[in-house]
């Protein structure tokens, strides 16, 4: 399977050295970053072409980075917090090699990403949340800001989880600005505030119009990865249970790969997720999604090079 995934990734590589989410789609920073990590994850069955593909993918990421340190999701689009975060994660795995270009890229990216934040809520929403929460349409603390998908809009869980992981990685490598500590603190509070009842996370709403929403396993696994330094907290333990329940029903390659990484970081048995990963590839070929292909290779390889963060004293936030 590893060889097949690798070959399919290499086959779908764009002439510019990057990957679109699917074949014949414009190079997408998220797909390119995951393909880069997957190919570089040290799997023995990797192709002979992998080293050249890794080098050109790195170059493509450098080329797509804006002067301000940010990345767009796709060339020509506006700067994207999520794309910038994923690019930081990918490049952070190559840090520590006295590569000036890499170090400069990571430093500028972390400096750009740190102060980005989601839009604030109008005073009416804040008033309702504080004084008459039962009248709030969406149950979420409007004062807690993570990162949005699109500048000027609401903070969502997935871009925030990517950003938290990226900035912790940058912090670990000494690339993050001083302000990163306060920013991470607020973002983590936002993530725990958005956690679904019973644990786990979805795109970002736990309750809308009085109805509780269910967690998504892919977002739950990703967020748990970002919050790995709080692994003993009640909220994380609860979310691990939610992940197990949700991933029993969802056996996609995306969920399986993220679950393998998550369970590995939390020292949990990942055998079911590995079975799901194989089954998904055999059944759908990950529907040709290059991000999932890269993620699958990363999950099966030495993912810790990209996913571990500085250990802090465990604390219970809920």
């Amino acid at each position, binding site marked *: 399977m590893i060889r097949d995934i690798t070959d399919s990734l290499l086959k779908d590589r764009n002439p510019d050295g990057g990957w679109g989410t699917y074949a014949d789609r414009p190079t997408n920073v998220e797909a390119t970053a995951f393909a880069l990590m997957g190919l570089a994850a040290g799997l023995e069955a990797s192709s002979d072409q992998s080293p050249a593909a890794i080098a050109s993918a790195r170059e493509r990421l450098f080329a797509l980075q804006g002067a301000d340190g940010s990345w767009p999701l796709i060339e020509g689009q506006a700067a994207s917090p999520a794309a910038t975060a994923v690019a930081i994660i990918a490049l952070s795995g190559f840090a520590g090699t006295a590569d000036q270009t890499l170090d400069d890229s990571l430093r500028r990216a972390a400096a750009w990403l740190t102060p980005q934040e989601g839009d604030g809520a109008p005073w009416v929403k804040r008033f309702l949340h504080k004084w008459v929460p039962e009248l709030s349409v969406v149950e979420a603390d409007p004062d807690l800001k993570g990162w949005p*998908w*699109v500048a*000027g*809009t609401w903070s969502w869980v*997935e871009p925030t989880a990517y950003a938290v992981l990226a900035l912790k990685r940058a912090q670990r490598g000494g690339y993050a600005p001083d302000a990163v500590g306060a920013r991470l603190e607020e973002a983590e509070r936002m993530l725990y505030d958005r956690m679904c009842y019973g644990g786990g996370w979805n795109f970002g709403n736990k309750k*809308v119009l009085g109805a509780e929403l269910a967690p998504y396993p892919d977002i739950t696994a990703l967020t748990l990865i970002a919050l790995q330094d709080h692994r003993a907290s009640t909220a994380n333990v609860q979310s691990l249970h939610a992940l197990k329940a949700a991933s029993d*029903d*969802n056996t996609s390659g995306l969920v399986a790969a993220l679950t393998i990484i998550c369970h590995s970081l939390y020292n949990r048995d990942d055998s079911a997720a590995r079975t799901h990963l194989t089954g998904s590839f055999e059944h759908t070929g990950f*529907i040709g999604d290059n991000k999932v292909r890269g993620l699958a290779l990363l999950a099966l390889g030495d993912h810790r090079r990209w996913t571990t963060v500085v250990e802090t004293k465990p604390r219970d936030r809920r």
Partner: protein
Amino acid sequence: MKRRDFLKSVVATAALPTLACSRKTTEQRQIRWTGEAYRKPKQSRVAVLSADRYGERLEAKVLEGLALFALEVKDKNVVLKPNLVEYDPQGVINTHPLLIAATVSAMRTLGAASVSVAEGPGHRRDNEYMLTASGLWNVLRDFDVAYVDLNHDRTRAVKLATHFTNFGTLQLPETILDADLLVSMPKMKTHHWAGATLSMKNLFGIMPGSVYGWPKNPLHYAGLEQSIVDINGAISGARFAIVDGIVGMEGNGPIQGTAKNSAVLVFGDDFVAVDATCARLMKLDPLKMGYLSDAAEFLGNVERNAIRQLGEDPAGLEQDFEVLERFKQLKTISA
């Protein structure tokens, strides 16, 4: 000031290229659409056919509906846009895969050069899961149909002739823009922000997440109903709607409502008229739905006397869809 309080004004005749519509606030006049956006026919046609189950005879039903319009499909590249939103084991949230299969088959029978299925889910980024859990994956495989993830399609900027939002331009997927025939295939559902989600709201799903995020937050910021009108105004190619009302959804739709066995399929080439007819089938007043009321100015017909009903008499097929308290006013039908 509420939009309902705005004064409708303007314009002379529908045929003039300078035609424009505006609503006057106390402080300003805002042009909301220009003449090139005008597509409202004098008379629209909508067909309602009864269909009580997702079974083998669906293709015949679809062909029957298409025949009522003598829809020209031969040698055309047809893109089906279903409503694919969430995990849906009961077949209540998403357009039923068997209806999609029946439509693929019907389009091929009518000589379509190609038929593909395209969607850009707004919340779930796990497309493999969406396809497999909804049952659509098996249809795509068994019928050898291409699927396009519109969230990651190539896009082109389209300058808007409507200005219900301040976007000015929208980035739209090439698959949609290049289709010879776009078929909107929504589920007949209530919607907790818009009142009902039908063929017009279904086009929210064409907006690429790679540009507008997940959920497509800038569109909500710009106004859900205003965005619906601008998106529909931006699609100028041939279109058709087939609404899955065999099992619909009432209450807290579009995801957490309850199943409503409404046993109909609704067909038409004027999305406004199709949605107005669906609303009446759901016992909702279409003229009280903001986006339909706005679209009725220039995109299509809402009034009963401007819609010629084909197929079966819709009066006997109405179902009383429950709505959330905030939409109770839609239940008083005035038109």
